[in-house]
């Protein structure tokens, strides 16, 4: 792009023309923004308005500044090929948040002038992104795990014409589902039991020409990135094979919680106290007959719900496994069908979904007794067992005799080791927290073997969420993990039953296909889907501090032999967290960089200290905070005319240099708005908001050096629903500046 030519287009529609002096905006664009063209239009998003812009592009405009509505509106109309585009938000960001009064007119116009200056400054430092050139299309998916989730994912992907490499570590497909005697049905009527159809599914997988099944096989090594993973498969016999796949689905399922950890409930003490899976296997082996370990018929079976789950006790599972109530109802019906008596002792009986309620009703109709209570002990009594429990309705202690007791012990995810353990141990050692370090070391010593053996700088497996389930953004991006192009499905992601696992696996298969297709075009995955930009870095400036490598939430950056960061553009989600991390600011994107933001905030006209016109810089995450601000405009929530809002990809991309620059150039206050961080994070880039909070906690030094009050920089966690709270935060900051006074750094 030899000659940069900026064209600025100022819309007068939607009331902008009536509230603002657009001629003045045009002259600001020309004089201060250095736009070659600046045109006003009565209705910019109309066919005519768009054509005007297109004609200018044809005549040589390379950078387009649209001063109209929010960048989130009219994206179709204002998408032009082959040019860089920036937008000044005059509608949602100015006229809709300011009162239409003569007194407010002056500051409202100043706001608009600034947004035009900022958009021009941004445009000037933007380049048009294009794909890296590392792309290739590989329409093959690796599925790890041959249970019901894995088989479903394989079949669904195969249906679309994709090839599947299905890896199963045991000698047979089917997993836990294959061991079931019967299942509860997946279609009405739900109050009857259905035959186990896993066998038919195994046959379908074996017969499918698009699926290659590898039994007794594990993944020895995974290298590369979405669209070009190189995976080494190893068989038990020692043979190995390399496959190239575009995306990966990990469907490794679960293991039942270890029953011997529940000695008070008789776990491991009597062979007639068993978990649900063992009971299922026994009934299946006896083709429906219910037999005790000594071979005699069992007449009374007691099912104990929430055994070692939903419990805060040390070593217990704190969560609900989601399927056990339904499973116990199903198994109690085996007992009724065999002519015995079945009692389910529950605290809360959870049968999610309308069909679940029918399953429950079916159990009641069959005569299963449901008793609300808490079991305290299970003991041997003569030839049988005695279940001691507190009846919670009748509020009394009581006992019931049983031949067999089935404990609903729940699910433990079969995920690989937590990839961050080494990093966490290093951090704990460094912080001198020996207790924590010891605990983590013990965890590492007993960690399971790696499943994917990723050759990533950030560890061998997919990161975990709570309780060892693989991470995913539960609300916005289920199936997603923090390793782009790698998806997890089924109970390894969260506890679930077979029906849910099949649904889950279908979702993951579609996501994996999307990842392959996006990677082939050099496009980012959500939330910036379609984005062609990717981080580049200036090697000469890099100090090898490794911050980018460590802080990238998606493990996108490896290190080369010399210790320099090595980007894998298709693993990258374009959040900019690495850019925010880099102390020497050598990381940038074509259309988003330290410069594009830095120049915007410097383009703002800074009134002097005595003008009584403070300036507040608001850096708002484009995923939640910025839409919330737009909605504040739509619902006419007013906020300070002194705020200048700049959307950022993620708070994680905020480089502290922007804050220092802003303070040095005379801003009176800086507000950072990002998504919720921590265990229940809502950050669309997982760690970005957390990193920003961490970095900002260190900004106090800078403020002290500058002799400024530390309240001048504030970081908030907000959500998309905070359309009243965010304006309030801004207004409070204005008020605060009124109290502590203007910044002395104005010139």
């Amino acid at each position, binding site marked *: 792009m030899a000659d940069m030519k900026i064209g600025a287009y100022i819309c007068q529609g939607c009331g902008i023309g009536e509230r603002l002096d657009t001629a003045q905006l045009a002259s600001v664009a020309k004089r201060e923004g250095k736009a070659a063209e600046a045109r006003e239009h009565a209705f910019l998003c109309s066919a005519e308005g768009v054509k005007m812009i297109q004609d200018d592009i044809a005549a040589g405009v390379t950078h387009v500044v649209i001063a109209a509505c929010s960048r989130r509106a009219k994206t179709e109309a204002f998408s032009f090929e082959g040019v860089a585009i920036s937008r000044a938000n005059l509608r949602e960001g100015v006229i809709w948040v300011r009162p239409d009064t003569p007194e407010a007119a002056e500051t409202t116009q100043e706001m608009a002038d600034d947004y035009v200056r900022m958009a021009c400054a941004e445009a000037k430092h933007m380049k048009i992104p294009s794909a890296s050139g590392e792309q290739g299309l590989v329409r093959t998916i690796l599925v790890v795990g041959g249970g019901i989730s894995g088989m479903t994912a394989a079949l669904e992907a195969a249906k679309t014409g994709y090839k599947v490499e299905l890896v199963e570590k045991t000698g047979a497909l089917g997993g836990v589902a294959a061991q079931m005697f019967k299942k509860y049905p997946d279609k009405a009527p739900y109050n009857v039991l259905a035959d186990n159809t896993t066998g038919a599914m195994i046959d379908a997988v074996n017969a499918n020409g698009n699926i290659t099944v590898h039994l007794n096989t594990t993944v020895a090594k995974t290298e590369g990135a979405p669209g070009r993973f190189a995976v080494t498969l190893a068989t038990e016999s020692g043979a190995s094979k390399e496959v190239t796949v575009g995306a990966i689905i990990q469907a490794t399922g679960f293991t039942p919680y270890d029953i011997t950890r529940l000695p008070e409930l008789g776990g491991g003490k009597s062979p007639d106290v068993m978990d649900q899976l063992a009971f299922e296997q026994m009934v299946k082996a006896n083709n429906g007959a219910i037999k005790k370990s000594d071979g005699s018929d069992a007449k009374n079976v007691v099912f104990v719900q929430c055994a070692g789950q939903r419990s805060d006790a040390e070593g217990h599972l704190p969560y609900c496994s989601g399927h056990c109530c339904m499973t116990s109802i199903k198994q109690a019906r085996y007992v009724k069908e065999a002519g015995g008596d079945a009692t389910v002792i529950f605290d809360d009986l959870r049968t999610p979904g309308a069909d679940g309620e029918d399953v429950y009703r079916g159990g*009641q*109709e069959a005569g299963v*007794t*449901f*008793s*609300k209570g808490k079991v305290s002990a299970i003991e041997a009594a003569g030839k049988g067992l005695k279940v001691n429990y507190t*009846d919670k*309705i*009748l509020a009394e202690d009581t006992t019931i005799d049983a031949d067999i007791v089935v404990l609903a012990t729940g699910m433990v995810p079969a995920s690989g080791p937590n990839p961050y353990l080494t990093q966490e141990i290093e951090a704990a050692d460094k912080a001198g927290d020996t207790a924590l370090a010891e605990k983590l070391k013990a965890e590492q010593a007993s960690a399971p073997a790696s499943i994917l053996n990723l050759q990533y700088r950030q560890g061998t497996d997919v990161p975990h969420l709570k309780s060892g389930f693989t991470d995913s953004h539960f609300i916005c991006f289920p199936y997603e993990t923090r390793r782009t192009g790698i998806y997890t499905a089924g109970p390894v992601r969260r506890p679930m039953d077979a029906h849910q696992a099949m649904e889950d696996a279908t979702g993951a298969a579609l996501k994996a296909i999307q990842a392959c297709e996006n990677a082939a075009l050099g496009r980012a995955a959500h939330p910036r889907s379609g984005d062609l930009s990717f981080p580049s870095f200036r090697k000469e400036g890099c100090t090898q501090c490794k911050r980018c490598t460590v802080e990238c939430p998606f493990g996108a950056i490896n290190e080369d032999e010399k210790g320099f960061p090595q980007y894998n553009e298709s693993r990258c989600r374009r959040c900019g967290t690495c850019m925010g991390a880099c102390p020497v600011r050598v990381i940038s994107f074509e259309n988003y960089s330290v410069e594009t933001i830095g120049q915007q905030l410097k383009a703002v006209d800074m009134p002097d200290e005595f003008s009584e016109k403070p300036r507040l810089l608001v850096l708002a995450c484009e995923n939640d905070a910025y839409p919330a601000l737009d909605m504040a405009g739509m619902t006419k929530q007013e906020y300070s005319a002194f705020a200048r809002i700049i959307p950022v990809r993620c708070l994680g991309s905020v480089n502290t240099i922007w804050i220092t620059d802003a303070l040095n150039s005379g801003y009176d206050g800086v507000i950072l708005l990002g998504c919720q961080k921590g265990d229940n994070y809502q950050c669309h880039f997982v760690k970005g908001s957390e990193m920003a909070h961490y970095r900002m906690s260190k900004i106090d030094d800078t403020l002290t050096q500058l002799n400024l009050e530390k309240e001048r920089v504030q970081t908030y966690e907000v959500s998309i629903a905070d359309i009243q709270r965010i304006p309030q935060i801004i207004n409070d900051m204005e008020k605060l500046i009124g109290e502590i006074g203007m910044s002395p750094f104005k010139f």
Partner: protein
Amino acid sequence: MSDMNQAMVEKYRSNFLKEVEANVEEGTWVKMCMQCGVCSGSCPLGPHWEHPPQELFMMIRAGKREEVLSSSSMWMCTSCYNCIARCPRGLPITHIMHGLASYAKRLGLAPNRQPTKEFGQIFWDSIAKNGRVNELKIGVGLYFMNGFSQGIKNALAGRELGMAMMKSKRMNPMEYFGGHKCKDLSGIAKMLKKAEEFEAEHITKFGE
């Protein structure tokens, strides 16, 4: 223990739920209760009872035969139908309440001098005998249900109401001596006998 009660105890040894299913009107529904407590929460009288409906159903499943059948709770039901209207499982709770009460009475286990029970009996005796309800006799019967001196106390307490009723010709003291009857007394007797036959048949069907 009545003979009938003895027989039932033997027949359903340690399975009171089955006994209720077989012998109590709408008793087959008891197992469908999911213990949500909506009925108890909806019942205007529930808080005043020893065992609100949900708890009675739980007690049935827990095999608490004596406690259930001798409870006064089901006798307190006013048939307001709040519970039926709200039960998410569609249990005919009101009917089960009445079914339980009548079964308990049949077995001779209903609590002694339970006012609802006594009232029902006196009412029945009156109507079966005369084909009409003799209000004075019912009133007197109820007042004296707990003995003579208590009856006098009750009568004194209700004195003003009684006088007012007499003044407005709502009550005639002469009714106490016989009172008027319906025209076709023998017809009534025949009709009731037939009804008894039907009921007996119905009960044995239940009990089978």
